[in-house]
């Protein structure tokens, strides 16, 4: 295997080797500390020690010389023998000094110095009595001769000892160890320095390498996200394009693992082939790329990018199948305005928004413009305000509930129930469609909070409807997708049923889309709630990916037929028959029907003729606030009482 230079560098600065070098460095420090400790134990000879030792030796030699001289003088009867004794004692004390004092301990440690001095001391001690005799005058010439003979032997050895230690010799040069230690120390120092420099240079290179690697994507070998953060990579005059593979999640799910890496590599290759030489390709995240098109014109970027994408599209051959790979782009165009300062984060965000838009609408590309940015900003503001509101903080967003009465088909004036509808307004001027509020909440994990808010609000506004007005119709409340979960029974108990709303008068509306996504989960929950006495209605029937099977499996009480089945029934006989068919199937399955969106008298007549149980629409009632609904119901009730009294013949009060 031939190693490419990048592979060699990769190996050289790999985790293992870097850690290895670090361990070496640590060992180096440990070794030097150990050596330092060892040196302390070994008691390196200092120059001061040598000075004291040589001083002691010099004194030793001088005092020996002095004694020698007095021996000569006493022998020639030129000196008082007492002086010989004094100098004998002086030399004697010098021996004890050499053998005991800490000052000259270095001398004793060297070679066989201790033994030599002790030997000399023993021999010298043997002269003690004869010298005392000479000093006391009780000796003869033979004693003196004996002392002189023995002393000469000792003196020669003393000189020998001094010479060997001071000037040099085979055994006991006291400076020798000092020099040896110094030499050793020098070698260690040089070694340490060399190794330290080696390590420093290694890490300097490693740092450079890492800095380079930091901006390179390991899979595609193109630049990565970090490169974008460097200065001057993205300029105002550049077009910033975010590119993603269409249905990337699906493709990755089907061909995950190592094959996915191959796909990403292929994509990078295709894209880099379709861009111009000075343009930049950056791999920002899996299946997502950024192209920085240099110095491009702010206008007419669309067709150029469309062309670029079409060039890059390819067929990916995997095994025996060919998967078409299509790219989708979101574009943040270049600007001419020199004053506009936008960092790459902003441009990246704009491009991603455009990309998401394009992905949602299944178009090839989308150029970020003011309208789109405004829509996103509004959405962001709504989300911010929603968070505030759901945390019970006052903000610029106002949410409230309205009620659209549902009437019985048989007596089209009689209010049988009401559907609770959400209304929202931002800054007291912009009305926000309820489905947008629900979508934003669902996308940002606020679905349950919004659902609970609606339940609480509905309970608050309608409680006295049930308690004091004895309203015996139903209240139909829409459940957003997050609400269909295991906790829903408890949520209903806590926020609705505990507030004196009778269970049997609540109808929960679910859409096919959210209830049918996960039958395994939703069916038991719906069943449990139905057991509590609540009813379920399937909303927007016929608009989603629905089948009649859902009707059966979801075990619902009411079916709400969407307005699209009602439109034009007064002119279109086929449509009318179709509606009749749906109502008939539902009633045969024992499900009550509520037909929505009835706007005129003809539609009303036809629907009622077809046998719908309930009808709802502008033709009967517009959605209204709770107060108005109360008022309506009061009027209806008064009317009932009047009719009843008329029938029973009681006078009207």
């Amino acid at each position, binding site marked *: 295997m031939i190693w490419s230079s990048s592979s060699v560098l990769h190996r050289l600065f790999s985790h293992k080797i870097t850690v290895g070098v670090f361990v070496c460095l640590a060992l180096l420090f440990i070794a030097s500390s150990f050596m330092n400790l060892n040196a302390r134990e070994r008691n390196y000879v200092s120059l001061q020690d040598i000075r004291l030792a040589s001083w002691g030796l010099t004194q030793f030699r001088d*005092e020996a010389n*002095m004694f020698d001289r007095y021996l000569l*003088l006493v022998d020639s009867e030129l000196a008082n023998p007492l002086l010989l004794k004094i100098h004998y*004692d002086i030399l*004697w*004390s010098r021996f004890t000094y050499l053998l005991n*004092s800490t000052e000259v301990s270095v001398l004793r440690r060297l070679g066989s110095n201790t033994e030599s001095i002790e030997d000399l001391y023993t021999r010298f001690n043997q002269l003690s009595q004869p010298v005392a005799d000479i000093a006391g005058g009780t000796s003869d010439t033979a004693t003196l001769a004996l002392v002189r003979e023995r002393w000469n032997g000792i003196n020669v050895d003393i000189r020998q000892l001094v010479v060997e230690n001071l000037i040099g010799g085979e055994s006991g040069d006291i400076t020798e160890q000092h020099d040896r230690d110094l030499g050793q120390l020098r070698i260690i120092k040089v070694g340490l320095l060399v190794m330290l420099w080696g390590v420093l240079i290694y890490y300097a290179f490693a740092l450079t390498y890492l800095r380079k690697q930091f901006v390179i994507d390991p899979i595609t070998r193109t630049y990565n996200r970090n490169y974008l953060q460097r200065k001057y990579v993205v300029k105002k005059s550049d077009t910033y394009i975010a590119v993603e593979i269409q249905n990337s999640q699906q493709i990755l799910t089907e061909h995950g693992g190592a094959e996915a890496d191959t796909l990403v590599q292929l994509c990078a290759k295709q894209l880099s082939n379709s861009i111009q030489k000075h343009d930049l390709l950056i791999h920002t995240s899996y299946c997502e790329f950024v192209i920085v098109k240099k110095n491009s014109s702010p206008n007419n970027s669309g067709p150029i990018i469309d062309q670029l994408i079409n060039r890059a599209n390819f067929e990916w051959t995997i095994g025996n199948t060919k998967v078409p790979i299509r790219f989708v782009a979101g574009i943040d165009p270049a600007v001419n305005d020199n004053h506009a300062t936008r960092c790459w984060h902003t441009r990246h965000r704009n491009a991603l928004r455009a990309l998401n838009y394009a992905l949602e609408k299944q178009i090839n590309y989308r150029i970020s413009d003011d309208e789109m940015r405004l829509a996103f900003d509004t959405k962001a503001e709504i989300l911010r305000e929603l968070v505030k509101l759901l945390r019970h903080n006052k903000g610029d967003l106002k949410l409230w509930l309205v009620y659209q009465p549902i009437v019985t088909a048989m007596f089209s004036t009689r209010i049988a129930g009401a559907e609770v509808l959400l209304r929202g307004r931002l800054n007291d001027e912009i009305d926000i469609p309820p489905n947008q509020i629900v979508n934003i909440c669902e996308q940002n994990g606020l679905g349950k909070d919004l659902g609970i808010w609606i339940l609480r609000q509905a309970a608050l506004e309608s409680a006295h409807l049930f308690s004091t007005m004895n309203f015996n119709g139903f209240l139909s409340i829409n459940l957003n997708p997050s609400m269909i979960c295991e906790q829903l029974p408890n949520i209903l108990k806590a926020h609705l049923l505990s507030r004196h709303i009778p269970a049997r008068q609540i109808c929960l509306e679910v859409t096919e889309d959210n209830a049918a996504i996960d039958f395994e989960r939703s069916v038991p929950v719906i069943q449990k709630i139905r057991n509590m006495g609540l009813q379920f209605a399937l909303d927007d029937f016929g608009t989603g990916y629905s089948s009649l099977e859902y009707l059966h499996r979801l075990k619902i009480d009411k079916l709400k037929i969407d307005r699209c089945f009602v439109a034009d029934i007064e002119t279109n006989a086929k449509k009318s028959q179709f509606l009749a068919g749906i109502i008939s199937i539902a009633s045969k399955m024992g499900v009550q029907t509520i037909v929505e969106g009835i706007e005129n008298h003809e539609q009303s007549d036809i629907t009622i003729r077809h046998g719908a149980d309930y009808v709802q629409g502008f033709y009967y009632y517009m959605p209204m606030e709770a107060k108005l609904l109360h008022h309506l119901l009061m009027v209806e009730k008064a009317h009932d009482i009047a009719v009843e009294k008329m029938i029973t013949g009681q006078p009207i009060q």
Partner: protein
Amino acid sequence: MSNMETPTFIKKYKGNLTVFFVVLGVFFLCCSFVARAQAPEVSLQISKSSTGLVQSWSLGKVDALSQQRITTHSPFFPGTKTFSGPLLADLLAAAFSAEPKESTPIKLIALNNYSIQTTFGKLKHADAIVATRKNDLPMSIRDRGPFWIILPLNKRPDLENENFYRLMIWQLSDIIIGESQ
């Protein structure tokens, strides 16, 4: 011993100049020791360089002064030992009826002719004593006596260096006050 003997020496070793000078040197050397060597007990010679007057202080005379005790270690012997003797300042005050000035040069000479030169002030501030007893016993020459300058190293860590160790001269034989000549 008299000067009359000198010519005999010259005659005896005539023709050998080297030996002659050696002997002559040895002779003068020994002459300088003769006066002191007469006394069987070594006493402390205290003198003033300006007058040349030499006082001889025997052990008994030194003992009569007020005594100090110092228990200390030193680089010269293992362990700690207790020394006693008068303060050097007291001794000099007694010898010259007044304490010398601190700036006065002082020369201390040992029996082996080792000598050091310092000022009186330095020794005074180091609380130097002229020790005559070690562990309450008089010190022989073999014990580095009879006189030993001892500094209280145990109590004064500031004295623990070579600068002061060198002042602790043992087998002290002469103290000379004033400019050396």
